[in-house]
């Protein structure tokens, strides 16, 4: 138990610290890297909860795919940091105040024993978290699962419609027109007077 708690607090501390760092560092690339760290530590905490599948998915999907893409974008865009941070100092006191009030409220409310549900029993070692999830998703949760699929579909549609420009001036070949062209279209015979 003690080891578990130690591990939890260790990762939590890193998580909170890197999250803070992420929003306060000057360099956007560094911020992205801190975000990666946030994901890693969260994955570790999930592992503590015996949610192996989710933990690995988080690392694979977010760190492996999303954040890499993000990093590319950030590096390619030329972001003017000085301009973006211009208001930082000005808004800091208000932001801090609100943040503190928020934190106090949360602390006051959540410090009391709230989550009094029965703690779930730890599962044996051969228990497959992944299989359980899969079974649930395709039986009990089939309806929300499908809806989630639709959301992803809509996201794809939205992304494509919003970004795909059909360039009207783009130069491209039209084989059909090329084949059906005839001589009259291409060659024009003109008779001219001699100079």
């Amino acid at each position, binding site marked *: 138990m003690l080891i578990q708690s130690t591990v939890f607090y260790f990762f939590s501390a890193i998580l909170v610290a890197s999250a803070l760092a992420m929003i306060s560092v000057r360099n956007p690339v560094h911020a992205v890297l801190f975000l990666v760290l946030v994901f890693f530590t969260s994955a570790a905490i999930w592992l503590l909860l015996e949610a192996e599948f989710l933990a690995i998915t988080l690392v694979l999907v977010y760190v492996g795919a999303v954040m890499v893409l993000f990093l590319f974008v950030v590096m390619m865009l030329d972001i003017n940091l000085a301009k973006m941070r211009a208001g930082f100092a000005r*808004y800091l006191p208000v932001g801090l105040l*609100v943040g503190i009030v*928020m934190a106090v*409220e949360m602390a006051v409310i959540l410090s009391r024993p709230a989550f009094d549900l029965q703690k779930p029993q730890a599962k044996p070692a051969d228990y497959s978290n992944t299989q359980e999830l899969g079974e649930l998703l395709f039986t009990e949760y089939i309806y929300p699962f499908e809806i989630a699929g639709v959301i992803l579909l809509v996201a794809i549609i939205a992304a494509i419609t919003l970004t795909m420009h059909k360039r009207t001036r783009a130069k491209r070949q039209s084989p059909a027109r090329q084949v059906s062209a005839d001589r009259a279209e291409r060659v024009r015979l003109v008779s001219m007077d001699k100079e």
Partner: protein
Amino acid sequence: MKILCLIIVLAPLAGALIAGLSGRSIGRAGAHWVTITGVALSFLLSLVVFKQVILDPAASMSIDVYRWAVLGGLNLKVGFLIDPLTVTMMLVVTFVSLMVHIYTIGYMHDDPGYQRFFAYISLFTFSMLMLVMSNNFLQLFFGWEAVGLVSYLLIGFWYTRESAIHANLKAFLVNRVGDFGFLLGIAAVLAVFGSLDYLAVFSQAPGASGQTIAIAAGIEWPAMTVICLLLFVGAMAKSAQVPLHVWLPDSMEGPTPISALIHAATMVTAGIFMVARMSPLFEFSDVALSVILVIGALTAFFMGLVGIVQNDIKRVVAYSTLSQLGYMTVALGASAYSIAIFHLFTHAFFKALLFLAAGSVIVALHHEQDMRKMGGLRERMPVTYWTALIGTLALVGFPGFSGFFSKDAIIEAVHYSNLPGAGLAYILVTAGVFITAFYSFRLLFLTFHGESPDRGKVVGRITESPAVITVPLVLLAIPSVFAGLFIGPLVFGDYFGDSLRVLDHHGAVAELQSHYHGLGSFIVHGFQGPAVWLMFAGILSAWWVYRRQPTIADLGKRKLRLLYNVLFYKYGFDELYQGLFATGTHRVGTVCSSFGDRMLIDGLVVNGFARAVNWCSLRVRNVQSGYLYHYAFTMILGLLVLLGIRYL
């Protein structure tokens, strides 16, 4: 039955909407076909309903069509009460309306507002049907106001004429006075009975007869008297009883078909109908009945007198309408509701006939209305002449014609009435017979007999009106002659069943009934009273004065200067109202407007408030800065408030 009633009511409305909204696209013929079809359909279905109700008295029913709204336990609904009284009115309204529709094709032939006119009269038919078929006070009020509105629109139909605008404003204002009383009456009904449904109210009426209402601190009046008097104020305005009669003669500024339909046959009888419909209430207030009796008698006599000195052909008929409405009111006062409705029934036919005949003359003379310039039209317009003669005979109560039965019955009923004021009323209505005969035949003689003063100029080209005008005349002439024959069942039989209620001690009708032994004996009995002889005397005098010795008229005018002037200026009601109410109110209004309204309310309250709000608005608008992080920040603040509101 419910569907049937709905069609009856909605068919004219549909016609009105089509003709009114798409008048331009369906054209003139389209407009009259669609409205006439609607009204004809109503008429035919009314006949069906009539047949059902009359054959089977149990078919009377109260139908709730639709619950419009519920306000604090009070049901506001739309519904129909179908009983003998209603079906009689439905028949009269739809029949006369149909005739007027057809007649209008000819009368308004050249008018640019053709479609608009048809839309209005169909709308009127709808409103009037809503009024008579209602089963509750609210719908009655709706119909009441709707017919008033259409009447206003139609009086001012030729809105470019200043006199027409003045007349419709006057009609509207005078009716407002009545509506005020009427509305208070309805409010009193609601206060006393807690319901607006006819049947519910009527069934509680006997129990409520002992109640009182405090009309001012310390003054308690019997509830029924207050209700009945207030309701009657409404009836006075709508049915043009003294002193709220002033709008009706002026309403003749409207086109003649309107005078026939609205201001003679149907709308003005709404007051009579309403009192008859409320007979279960009025029976419990002898005071109210007495007032009705006296007011009716005054109207019948004095308005007839004014008719003698009028020169405008339509105004004469209008004053005769006033006088006849007085007769109906008198009958109501004598608790002879069935006779009042009977007179309403016969009057609808012969007065519509007279108006349409007058209209026919007016059309033929290219909108000349002064009788002094007419004369000798008998040969030129035979159909108009004979139908007008029939109408006149019915109006004066010539034995055998419809008016005879109804009017004689009224006079007899007043004779038997034992309410205070009945004696005076009896004298006035009996004398009224002479007056009626005199002015009616004066009109006939001046218009159709003798020579026209400028015969060569005008009369030479005059021809009979076209068939669309004469056919309704003939169709109306038939009931004008024969409608009186229904007196047996209608008045003395059990025709109205439960729809009219008379208490035992108001026994005028019962008394009459005991003397009634068939039509023949009724006519013979008529000769035993003074009325018939007075009528003959009236005809004879008119003949003497206007045919035999035309100089007498001028002589009389000079010798009786004062009387003539009093009559010519219609007892000065117009001047009085103009001076007292119109000018006085205008002055008060000016003061209120300049000081109270413009300075206090507009300046301080409204504009001040508006400016304050505007100021706040401009300030607050700046919060919406357009910056995303401001927005997000506001959301966080909102969250904090929501979190904090409960515990922090």
